[in-house]
């Protein structure tokens, strides 16, 4: 049995990982922590940052710096969660891909390798955003989906 956990960095996706570990412990299953890096999100932040700082000519540098920092942060978070899982005796791995979250998630979750997908109910913007991605994921994924809050 393999369990896919969608980790977007939010508090709820980290709680999702804990629930995945609980199932994995009982079933001796493997947990895959999965994150998608979306360049467009970084580009948006870089644009706003350069407007605020009044240095539009620096936008490329902002974007690259943010992108690299984002990658490091994702890796650090997944490593932390992986260590929590391993401390509980759960076999874990992580996978980071680039692209649009919805498409990459559906592609991975429907690959036929997973018996359960676990995700947080809310996204990175806190409790204000619940909706389209959640509906797309629940509606578009073949295995059962556990939604955690």
């Amino acid at each position, binding site marked *: 049995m393999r369990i896919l956990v969608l980790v977007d960095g939010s508090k709820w996706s980290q709680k999702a990982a804990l629930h995945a570990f609980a199932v994995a412990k009982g079933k001796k299953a493997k947990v895959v922590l999965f994150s998608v890096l979306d360049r467009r999100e970084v580009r948006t932040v870089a644009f706003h940052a350069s407007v605020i700082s009044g240095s539009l000519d620096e936008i490329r540098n902002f974007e690259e710096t943010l992108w690299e920092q984002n990658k490091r942060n994702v890796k650090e978070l997944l490593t932390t969660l992986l260590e929590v899982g391993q401390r509980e005796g759960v076999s874990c791995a992580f996978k980071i891909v680039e692209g649009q979250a919805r498409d990459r998630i559906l592609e991975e979750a429907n690959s036929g390798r997973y*018996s359960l997908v676990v995700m947080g109910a809310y996204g990175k913007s806190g409790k204000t955003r619940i909706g389209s991605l959640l509906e797309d994921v*629940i509606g578009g994924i073949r295995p*059962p989906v556990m939604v955690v809050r």
Partner: protein
Amino acid sequence: MVNFSGIILRKFKNIAGSRYEEIMKAYQEFFLTEEELQIPEVKSILLVLDRFSGEVPEEVFEVLSAYPGARIEVVYVIDEGLCSIIGETLGEEEAEAFRKSEESLGRELLRVTERSLSKFDLSFSMEITFADKVEFVENDAKNRDILVVSRHFGSESTKTHRISPIVFRIVQGVKKPVIVY
């Protein structure tokens, strides 16, 4: 951008100093606290069914069997409001016929579910109830650790809405983890 509550929490603790508690309270929905960083214990599970749910796939029982000692309450819910509407519009006889047909469908689905639960050696109890579906699930789930529901619970899914609106409302409203199959 990714918001890494765990990382921020660790780094922030040193920087924020005495303001740490205050900031943690104000921004609690972004931070996973140390108390929350626990592997959850699951003792009670609610599995709701109705005429639209269909049979529960084996992979769901496989997941539920990961919780040793948990008790699963399986409830087939018949729409109370719909029974009333049929009674008011078509008469009591029609309403009674609808109730009987629903109960028969419920008993059959529970029988099939029971076979799978027994196969996985899961502890369970079963019942058929008349209620408002969303209200019932939202209230009952308060006393459970996990809720399990079909994507089609409450209504047929369509090409544009692959999850029933009732399930979407449940996922949004219920404070417990929900397994949607």
